[in-house]
């Protein structure tokens, strides 16, 4: 087996929706334990990029992908089952989307689908993942109540706990704070900084400041192409491409 050099290595990735090209010839590596942020205006292809990493893009019936994505050196299309990939690569969506179940059942959903029935194992996973997402103290006494009753910020941290329970490798965040107030946003960002010790994080955001605050490296996407990729500090202080500097100084988007 080839020794992996990166968590994700992406070569020649293009995505079409029907005839419309949404991602064009993407080549990049994502390192283990970094926070890799993607910024760009609406329709720049950044969410599509994220959905390629766990193959949620397959749900768009008219989509066509070409190129190759390897996770730890294994092709995510030919080399593993899609269910296994999605357990390894969890995603937090833009809106908090708890399932209409209890807090507890939301968290163990993925494990139950794997066929895990052992109650102590499930209990243990619930506590661990809620602690990791800093929600345990707030909800430990009402695990059996409906997840829909939590506040927006709590729901979003529940969605984080829900993927952490399955012991993933990579966490994908798709504009995770776009619907939240500043305090909840700060909490989520803090949580991410801690989580990167154990996980690789890919964060798509349209909040440029957020990328500057948490990102190790940042990529700028525009109309389906990656314009620039560099260390976050460099991208924000000395962008190589004029379109990047236009975007981060707010000239468009």
């Amino acid at each position, binding site marked *: 087996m080839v020794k992996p050099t990166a968590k994700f290595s992406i070569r020649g990735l293009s995505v079409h929706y029907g005839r419309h090209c949404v991602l064009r010839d993407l080549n990049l590596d994502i390192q283990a334990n970094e926070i890799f942020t993607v910024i760009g205006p609406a329709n720049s292809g950044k969410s599509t990029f994220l959905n390629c990493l766990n193959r*949620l893009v397959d749900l768009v019936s008219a989509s066509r992908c070409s190129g190759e994505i390897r996770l730890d050196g294994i092709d995510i299309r030919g080399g593993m089952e899609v269910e296994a990939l999605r357990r390894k690569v969890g995603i937090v969506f833009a809106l908090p989307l708890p*399932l209409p179940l209890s807090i507890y059942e939301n968290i163990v959903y993925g494990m139950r*689908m794997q066929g895990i029935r052992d109650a102590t194992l499930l209990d243990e996973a619930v506590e661990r993942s809620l602690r990791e997402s800093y929600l345990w103290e707030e909800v430990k006494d009402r695990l059996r109540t409906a997840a829909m009753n939590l506040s927006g910020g709590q729901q979003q941290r529940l969605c984080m706990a829900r993927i952490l329970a399955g012991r993933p490798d990579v966490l994908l965040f798709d504009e995770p704070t776009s619907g939240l107030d500043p305090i909840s946003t700060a909490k989520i960002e803090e949580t991410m900084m801690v989580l990167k010790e154990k996980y690789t994080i890919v964060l798509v955001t349209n909040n440029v400041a957020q990328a500057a605050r948490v990102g190790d490296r940042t990529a700028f996407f525009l109309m389906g192409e990656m314009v620039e990729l560099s260390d976050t500090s460099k991208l924000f202080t000395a962008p190589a491409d004029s379109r990047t500097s236009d975007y981060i100084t707010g000239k468009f988007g």
Partner: protein
Amino acid sequence: MNPRLAQKIAHAVMLTATLLVVLPVLVILVIIVAKGASAISWDFLFSMPRDGMTAGGIFPAILGTLYLVLGAILFAVPLGVLAAVYLVEYSSDNWFSRLVKLSIVNLAGVPSVVYGLFGLGIFVTFFRFGASILSGSLTLGIMILPVIITSAREALESVPRHFRVVSLSLGASRWQTIRHSVLPHALPGILTGMILGLGRAAGETAPILFTVAAFYLPRLPHSVFDQTMALPYHLYVISTQVPGIAENVRYGTALVLLSLVLLLNLAAILVRSRFRGKKKW
């Protein structure tokens, strides 16, 4: 004409029209209850007919209808719900799914007496089930299939798309997603369709005319290969074929049939409105 006056007249005409559609339900109910209630008794509901059906009860007809309806549901619900799952969850908008949808529309439009012919041709004759509960149930089952598919489809489509995306993103397989994150939320709608199907199957006469219904049987059916009496056919028989039956027996039979069907429909309406009130998303 003055537009205000025109509006007044138009509203009055439309209100009259609406009452003409809705009031007959009440009128029919009132007539049947008023003239049939006196026939209803324990004996009428739970004993066999006597003296050439002019006396005694209608128990075999009630029981037969229950058997037929049960059989139809056992056949049509699994098939219909799975077909709806296929249309909503598995098919994309291609020629085949359009063909399936068109077929369902046409199944819904086929006259009930043609279902009767079909049942006679395929179940009674071709499969040699004879005129039997099995043939009648299957015929009724195919007839109510569109009702079940249509309501199950609507129920599945009303489940938000993100339930599916979230479930899949957590590593659930396609079927697990349907089984655990879609079907439970579509259940009330599926149940509504099932009850409507029950009501329809209970009231139909033409499909069972040549496939199962018996004019008169001295004993109850013992197996699915036996013929049976059935309420709607019994009402038809005693109101057109057998002279000299007391009027209140006819109305009483109509009352039992109507109550059965309307109660089922009322139940469906209640399930649906409760479900709409409780929806959380």
